[in-house]
């Protein structure tokens, strides 16, 4: 019996060339959404088909891949994409942010600061930041072309009028390189400052919407706001219950059916690293035993 044979990293070379051309154009025009001929992938839309295609196009045999979903290395989505590339490209995979050269992510940016030479690949569901305000694609493209972004502030105005503060907590619009307004994918706004002047290359792939966009290393990324209602990062009331980190983004974990809950780092690699270094939170049990499995 013959096992199915794949080209390196699943996609054929012609497709990869096409995606790479889109990526190069996206890097040349930071924040601009480049259309590309998105392929069917062996997974449903919404599971990261855009991110997977970008990763497949940039992956080389010596790369080390890390995949996170909501900050975690051990959720279904993260594990299956990691396995997918271990199988089709035979690359080394890791859960360590330090070691990885390519990091595919859904909804988070790792807590550990990224370094030059790393590539962060985002999975994007809806690339158009103006979508819910202006339904016509022809019109939004024209607005991007002419840098007419007043409408974006209408959304923030509505937030303040309704809630007293800018209540948009994720997919918070940013202006890239003082030109294009961009949707940073549904990352919490807590992560927005990490995109600014980042040494790593950031690539965004939207498979269903067939768009790729990018932030080159060391590019300015500014979160939109008002003078009298400046952008603020979300502040948590308590530190992580496992590792005691006060500077990370926390997930709420329901621990029983009586309303008990704990708050822990959403970035599992960061949390495990801190616990291994001896940091302990209020609910940390025995020294950490569980690790992400491949």
């Amino acid at each position, binding site marked *: 019996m013959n096992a199915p044979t794949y080209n390196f990293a699943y996609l054929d070379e012609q497709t990869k060339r096409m995606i790479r051309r889109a990526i190069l154009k996206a890097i040349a025009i930071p924040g601009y959404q480049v259309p590309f001929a998105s392929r069917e992938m062996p997974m449903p839309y919404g599971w990261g088909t855009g991110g997977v295609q970008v990763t497949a196009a940039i992956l080389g045999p010596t790369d080390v891949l890390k995949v996170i979903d909501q900050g975690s290395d051990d959720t279904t989505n993260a594990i299956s994409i990691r396995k997918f590339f271990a199988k089709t490209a035979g690359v080394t995979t890791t859960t360590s942010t330090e070691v990885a050269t390519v990091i595919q992510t859904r909804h988070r940016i790792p807590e550990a600061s990224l370094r030059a030479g790393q590539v962060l690949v985002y999975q994007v569901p809806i690339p158009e930041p103006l979508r819910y305000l202006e339904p016509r694609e022809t019109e939004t493209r024209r607005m991007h072309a002419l840098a*007419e972004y007043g409408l974006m502030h*209408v959304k923030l105005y509505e937030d303040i009028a309704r809630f007293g503060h800018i209540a948009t907590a994720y997919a918070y619009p940013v202006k890239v390189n003082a030109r294009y307004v961009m949707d940073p994918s549904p990352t919490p706004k807590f992560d927005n400052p990490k995109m600014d002047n980042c040494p790593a290359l950031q690539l965004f792939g939207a498979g269903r919407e067939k768009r790729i966009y990018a932030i080159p290393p060391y590019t300015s990324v500014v979160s939109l706001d008002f003078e009298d209602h400046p952008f603020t990062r979300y502040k948590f009331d308590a530190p992580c219950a496992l590792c005691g980190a006060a500077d990370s983004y926390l997930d709420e974990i329901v621990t029983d059916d009586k309303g008990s809950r704990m708050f822990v780092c959403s970035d599992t690699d960061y949390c495990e690293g801190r616990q291994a270094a001896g940091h302990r939170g209020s609910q940390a049990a025995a020294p950490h035993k569980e690790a992400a499995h491949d």
Partner: protein
Amino acid sequence: MIEAPGMSDQPLLVAEGLAKTYGRLVACRDISFTLYPGEVLAIVGESGSGKSTLLQMLSAQLAPSAGRVSYRMRDGVLRDLAALGEAERRFLFRTDWGYVHQDPAQGLRMAVSAGANVGERLMAVGWNNYGRIRQTASSWLDRVEIDVARIDDAPRTYSGGMRQRLQIARNLVTEPRLVFMDEPTGGLDVSVQARLLDLMRSLVNELGLAAVVVTHDLAVARLLSHRVIVMKEGRVIETGLTDQVLDDPREPYTQLLVSSILPP
């Protein structure tokens, strides 16, 4: 007739030989006129006479088949609208011009609050202070007689007359010099129409606006405008001062129009 304030001897908008044809169908032919700052011009005529086509050509939303429209920019230079870039045209449209649609749903964002509707043009020209935007929005709501307490309600909760007043506030907030109005009182009941006309008349006077008002309602023309153009089958058949045309019509068609109004 009131003396129009801010009248100057340099025209604001000049139309020369405007025509629009759709194949063999002629919507407008050979229309020329000049509009001066602070002047209100009414375009009257029956349905299908080419009024709305003309308005769209004047406001650069429709390219004329022949002829041209020139507009005096804020720097005092008269420029051909067709020669403006798209960015310039759109900028003009949301700063120096206003456009009041017959159906407010076309001119408003129905799902966002009244305050944001009025503030949108300000944010589009770079206002970045929430407090100032909101304050300007509430003062405009007050000017168009909308209860300021309703600033955070979406226009879809407003009555027809309130929507139309909100649309006017949204257009006037950047202090345009020229406003286009397409049947501004259409679809409103008579008492609401009267209030709206009263409001528009006082705003036009206060701000020294020039306006082009398309209407089939001669009462609107009489109340608002200084001059009238009467259109029939795509051409201008009579033009002159409002009271002159309406009280002493020359053309048989205009006489018919005027006599078809019920005596008060």
